[in-house]
């Protein structure tokens, strides 16, 4: 045990010196990782900007399926007039089609809904349609999408349209008040009142209470803001789908009259094979449906992003190559200067593989440390540049530059850096293990 501890101590002591030497020789990695982090942050910011401003809410393989009598470019109007509905036959037919990998249904509550909220002492009420869609639709679109469910007795979760946040911020801006981010408004409390049919009867075990007031029946519920989204261009709030089905059933039983309580507005579907989209569109048109897709714009945007990626990755590739060559040279120098030590340890009984592994591990440790420094340096430089860039380039002031601070990017930076450093050390390590030992110890 003492022997083992002493060996570890001397090993670390010896490696510490080598690592310090390697630090100077591997300095180039820092620039690569810093550049990479800045590039990733810029790319993500621009990509998000394109997604939000050019592509709307659809992915390249996503389509919207609407009734044929719906005006595809005038869906704002459709939200208020509850007209263009999908028939049950259309819904069944679309769900049975095998052209799609996923199909999500947008439904709308048939009852009138009032949303009440209070901010800065001002209380306001507005009539707002309530929509719902399967929570899986929000996967990769909003954080914690899998928690978007209705729990009876708890405040109803609500996803508000993103433009309401923009409008609110405009109002705050003109009144000299600080603006809100999405995170600031998460959990913001509000109330909704849903008007239902007359003559309610008590529903045993139900946590939704129907009240009668001035000849009208209504339900009051607490609401909390779950997130904001622009996935649907309709004016209205999105609530969990299980709430609408739960509420409709309660309302139906309470009134004693059959009424589904909601209707189908449209589908969001992911096509299995984007090349077969024209055939799919033909099938849908035969069902009396129309298709809205961002594919044309998405294709062009993707081509532009591909060109930017190819250009940037070429630069990164060249930088990595140059760094590997420069670190390789520096490592060869280290091997030359440490050849005496390597030879001596080899003569005293150290195996070739141990020398190679030690050399590579030391290089990987140095690389990983540079990766961590590069990650923070890149983020710091990017944040600094993002703050000042709009004053230099007013044309891109609309782009929200967000630094890439997350675990995945951190791991990529550290891993890539360690890999580059270790790769650069591989050949010198093999040279180190094959030195002409007696020549080296005689020098």
């Amino acid at each position, binding site marked *: 045990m003492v*022997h083992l501890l*002493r060996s570890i101590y001397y090993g670390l002591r010896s490696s510490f010196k080598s690592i310090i030497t390697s630090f100077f020789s591997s300095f180039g990695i820092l620039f690569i990782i810093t550049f990479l982090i800045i590039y990733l942050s810029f790319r993500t910011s621009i990509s998000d900007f394109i997604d939000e401003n050019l592509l709307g809410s659809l992915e390249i393989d996503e389509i919207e399926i609407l009734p044929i009598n719906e005006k595809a470019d005038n869906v704002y109007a459709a939200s208020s007039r509850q007209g263009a509905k999908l028939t049950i036959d259309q819904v069944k037919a679309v769900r049975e089609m095998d052209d799609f990998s996923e199909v999500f249904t947008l439904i709308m509550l048939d009852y009138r809904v009032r949303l009440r909220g209070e901010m800065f002492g001002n209380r306001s009420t507005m009539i707002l349609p309530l929509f719902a869609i399967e929570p899986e639709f929000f996967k990769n679109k909003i954080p914690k999408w899998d928690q978007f469910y209705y729990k009876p007795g708890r405040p109803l979760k609500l996803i508000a349209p993103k433009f309401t946040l923009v409008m609110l911020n405009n109002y705050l801006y003109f009144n000299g008040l600080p603006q809100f981010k999405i995170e600031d408004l998460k959990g913001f409390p509000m109330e909704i009142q849903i008007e239902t049919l007359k003559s309610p009867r008590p529903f045993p075990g139900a946590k939704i209470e129907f009240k009668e007031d001035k000849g009208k029946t209504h339900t009051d519920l607490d609401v909390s803001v779950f997130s904001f989204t622009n996935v649907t261009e309709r004016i209205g709030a999105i609530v969990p789908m299980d709430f609408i089905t739960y509420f409709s059933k309660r309302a139906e039983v309470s009134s004693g009259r059959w009424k589904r309580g909601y209707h189908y507005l449209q589908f969001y579907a992911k096509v299995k094979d984007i090349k077969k989209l024209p055939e799919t569109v033909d099938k849908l048109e035969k069902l009396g449906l129309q298709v809205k897709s961002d594919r044309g714009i998405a294709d062009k945007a993707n081509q532009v992003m591909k060109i930017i990626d190819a250009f940037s990755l070429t630069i990164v590739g060249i930088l990595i190559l140059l760094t590997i060559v420069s670190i390789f040279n520096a490592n060869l120098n280290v091997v030359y200067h440490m050849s005496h030590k390597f030879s*001596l340890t*080899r*003569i005293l*009984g150290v195996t*070739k593989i141990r020398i190679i592994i030690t050399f590579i591990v030391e290089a990987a440790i140095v690389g990983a440390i540079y990766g961590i420094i590069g990650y923070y340096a890149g983020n710091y430089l990017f944040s600094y540049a993002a703050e000042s860039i709009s004053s230099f380039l007013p044309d891109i002031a609309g782009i929200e530059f967000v630094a890439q601070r997350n675990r995945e990017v951190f791991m990529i930076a550290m891993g890539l850096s360690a890999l580059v450093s270790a790769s650069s050390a591989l050949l010198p390590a093999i040279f180190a293990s094959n030195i002409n*030992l007696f020549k080296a*110890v*005689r020098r």
Partner: protein
Amino acid sequence: MKKNKQNISLLKVENIKLKFGSRMILSDVNFSVEPGTITVITGKSGCGKTTLLGIISGLLKPNDGKVYFKGKNILRWGDIRRSFYRSKNIGFIFQFFNLLNDYSAFENILLPTMFNPFARNASKKAKELIEYLNLKAISSNHPETLSGGERQRIAIARAVINNPDIILADEPTGNLDDESAEDINNLFIKLAKENNKAFVIVTHDHRIVENSDFHYHLSDTALVLQTKTKNRSKKPAAKKPSSIAKIKPAGKTSQNKSDSTSRKNTKKAAKKTSAKKTK
């Protein structure tokens, strides 16, 4: 079977041939080494003496031939096994000492134990060696502050810390003054005699040659036996390898000098006998 085991040499080199490109370095080199003996190899600079040490230690592979250690051909082993063989069974001493300046004398002595997974009580052994080699006063010093003789004694301590059977020395006195060289020479004799170590020394130093049991000369790629002290080769000091724990601290010169004198006398007697026989 038992008889065979007794006849097995500690180290046996058979028909070694080595070429660097088209240049023949060693051809049909044969010799064996027994415990407690000092074997000296002389020859012109660049004739392949050090290369031969490299082959014996398993660091170099010849084009042909065999190197048996306790009856096993080390050239058939892989790098890991040969490294372990070197760590456990071979001690090295160099002309330029090859101590690491980052470490103290004590730490330099301990260095080979770091690469030997079976090393036990390394500190204790190192302290005993420091006593034995009169290095106590300088054990915490770094090599750059020490004289050549002191450095070489540290290198010797480093060479024997793992209790190896064979010690290979490459020009061990080549960088020392006469007095230090004499001391080192006496130390080799003492270690060989008291601790049953086998020495293979590449040297030009006539004192070491005179005190050796076997003297080989490497000339024109061939190894030729020059002298042989029969009584030592036939009767090694002890059959079992000694442990470092057996090394007893001893006085510096008187014992060593008497050893040296007795060896010289033995050799002279042997020479006289052979001369009489020739007559």
